């Protein structure tokens, strides 16, 4: 039944009602019924008054089932706005970065540049709408602008136009300036892409300025490294010279917790990204592994065997006030907080034999098993708190079918999907801050390398190529 029908029947009722209870009929009615009818019509009239439209603000009417698909976005190459010889290099870096950022966002259907009109616009007056919104381009959005070097600075103007809406096309108009270097141009491209993704992606900030931390043996030892989300700008952070594992960046990005092998055994260590060196953190003795941050950055959970068996402990971010959460006899490792609420912890436990994923409240109560079979490790909680992604051998044992793959599970319904397949061993998934991407480690190229994919398992990309690179961790913003 359509809504408009219902509305009109309400109108009819209100108008016809008094006529039906005319004076002639009234005479034969008894008093109680009459008052009931009077009340009824009063109510109807009142509800009618309440339902009066409010003219004061804007209304949107929309619904499901209208065919929501990815926005068809065209990103034309930016034009030079000055005559400086450095323009060409910077433009190439800028255009490539902008295109990759938008393409990687996962929410756009990028229109291939081969479909673009020959004349691309550099400023709003040059936009010919019919050339962009009609075939073969068929774009609904267009990003364009210009870039010019003057002296040591580069100035970029960027616009985002809704080319199907010729009456009021502008969605974004931005101006950026930075040092006239390729890094400066890349940074501006990241920022402009982030702005576009933020607007068209429903208020979810883009990840173009986010970082990925990982373990690499390129220097001869396993040390912690850092790179941009797209794999560029890879550089070494720690120089400890032993083995450092499981880097976890704090929510504000200022500190990096990891576990490292010392003379006394495995300890949690802390690295300050602001100071560029390791900072002091208490040593608990015995084996301490897999630290993780609470979403408010005030607590750290980790696995420690100082009580005999490896169990989950939680401590303040400074390392003080540590106490034990799990007390079972099997090993418990790899805790991860619910990133939305901070009130739940998922972890791996071997209490029933092979490792399985469990969840519990942040105070250690209400322990529940999540996976039902196989060999499940490395849980990572999604930013919206809805999903766990983890590494799973669904059938484990000699000759069992299947392999070590990344799975995604909806915590509330326990339904899962398999995100990777047919590609070596896949482990250590970690969510991007926007919840649209997952970074993971895979041996599909022959050696252990870092890869990313969209959270629906598509658009798989390799980020690292040299040495062995493992245990990626995506920054929180």
């Amino acid at each position, binding site marked *: 039944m359509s809504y408009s029908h219902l509305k009109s029947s309400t109108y009819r009722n209100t108008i016809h009602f008094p006529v039906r209870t005319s004076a002639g009929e*009234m005479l034969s009615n008894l008093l109680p019924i009459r008052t009931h009818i009077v009340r009824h019509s009063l109510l109807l009239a009142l509800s009618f008054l309440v339902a009066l439209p409010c003219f004061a603000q804007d*209304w949107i009417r929309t*619904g499901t089932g209208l065919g*929501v698909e990815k926005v068809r976005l065209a990103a034309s190459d930016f034009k030079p706005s000055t005559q400086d010889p450095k323009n060409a290099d910077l433009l190439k870096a800028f255009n490539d970065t902008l295109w990759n950022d938008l393409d990687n966002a996962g929410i756009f259907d990028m229109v291939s540049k081969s479909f673009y009109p020959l004349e691309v616009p550099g400023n709003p007056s040059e936009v010919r709408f019919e050339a962009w919104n009609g075939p073969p381009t068929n774009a609904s959005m267009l990003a364009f602008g210009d870039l010019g070097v003057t002296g040591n600075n580069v100035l970029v103007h960027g616009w985002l136009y*809704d080319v199907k809406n010729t009456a009021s096309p502008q969605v974004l108009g931005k101006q950026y300036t930075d040092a006239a270097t390729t890094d400066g141009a890349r940074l501006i491209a990241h920022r402009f892409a982030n702005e576009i993704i933020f607007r068209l992606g429903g*208020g979810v900030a883009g990840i173009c300025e986010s970082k990925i931390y990982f373990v690499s043996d390129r220097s001869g030892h396993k040390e912690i490294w850092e790179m941009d989300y797209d794999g560029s700008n890879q550089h070494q952070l720690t120089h400890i010279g032993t083995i450092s594992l499981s880097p976890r960046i704090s929510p504000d990005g200022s500190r990096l917790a990891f576990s490292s092998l010392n003379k006394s055994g495995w300890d949690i260590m802390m690295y300050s990204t602001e100071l560029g060196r390791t900072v002091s953190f208490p040593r608990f003795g015995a084996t301490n592994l897999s630290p993780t941050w609470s979403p408010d950055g005030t607590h750290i959970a980790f696995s420690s065997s100082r009580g005999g068996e490896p169990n989950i402990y939680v401590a303040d971010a400074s390392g003080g006030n540590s106490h034990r959460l799990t007390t079972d006899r099997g090993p418990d490792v790899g805790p991860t907080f619910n990133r939305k609420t901070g009130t739940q912890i998922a972890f791996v436990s071997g209490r029933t034999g092979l490792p399985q994923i469990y969840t519990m409240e942040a105070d250690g109560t209400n322990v529940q098993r999540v996976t039902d079979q196989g060999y499940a490790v490395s849980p990572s909680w999604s930013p919206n708190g809805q999903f766990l992604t983890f590494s799973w051998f669904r059938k484990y044992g000699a000759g069992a079918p299947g392999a070590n793959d990344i799975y995604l599970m*909806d915590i509330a319904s326990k339904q899962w999907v398999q*995100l990777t397949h047919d590609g070596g061993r896949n482990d250590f998934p970690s969510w991007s801050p926007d919840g649209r991407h997952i970074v993971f480690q895979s041996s599909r190229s022959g050696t252990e390398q870092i890869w990313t994919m969209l959270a629906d398992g598509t658009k798989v990309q390799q980020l690292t190529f040299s040495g062995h690179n493992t245990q990626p961790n995506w920054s929180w913003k």
Partner: protein
Amino acid sequence: MPADAEIFFEHAKLGRPLLASVGLHLGLTVVAVLLSMYSGRRGDMWGAGGGGDAIGVSLVSNVPLPASPVQTQNVVANESKGLTKSQPQEKQNEPDAIPIPDKNTKIKAKPAVSATKAKPKPEPEPETNEIPYGQGGPVSGPYGTFSAAGAKGGFGFQGGGGDFGSTYAWYVRVVQQKVSENWLKYEIDPSIHKANRVYLTFDITRSGQPTHVQVEQSSGVPSLDQSAVRAIQRIDTFGPLPPEYSGSKVTVEFWFDYMR
């Protein structure tokens, strides 16, 4: 006054109440007619207005990615969207009916079957590693096992403060997508296969937060109403309203079609 007053002989006087009642009803009629004449409609009809096109089926996903254009029931991620058409149905030859032998007809000798006649070979099945339609595409597991109804619809906008819908069509699209992503259909009673539309209204503040979520018209299925309300409540923000927009909030009417 005698102690045994006969109350049954005292008749109620209907004159004044009747007059009052008739007056009231006349008044109400006049009010109703006037209101219906002057209030007007609150918006355009469905499908009118300058919003988007009305296009068919969408798969609702709540990983915050746009819905996949191909609906799948698979749980393994796949880059290929599969074939665009289904396989033709195989022809099945019905066996000929056996004639009932007639007594009067002479039995003719059947011509001998030549030994060289080749038996019909089974047609070779085409070797293919193509993914059948609907089996490819991104996974659609916990977030979109059920497909949305292929309802036709459109946007209708109206406002005194401005024409938000046509000026900021891209924002309307964002709202639509975000709500669709956050609608978890497994919250709906699994015994329901089809339900009436449920209409919600809510406000979007300048910073993009949804507030004042209300069921405007129930579908009659409580779990569906509830899942729709929770879809809105689950959303932290739609993103700030366009900075050029002058109003302090936008009111959205959102409908949910459910069919499985």
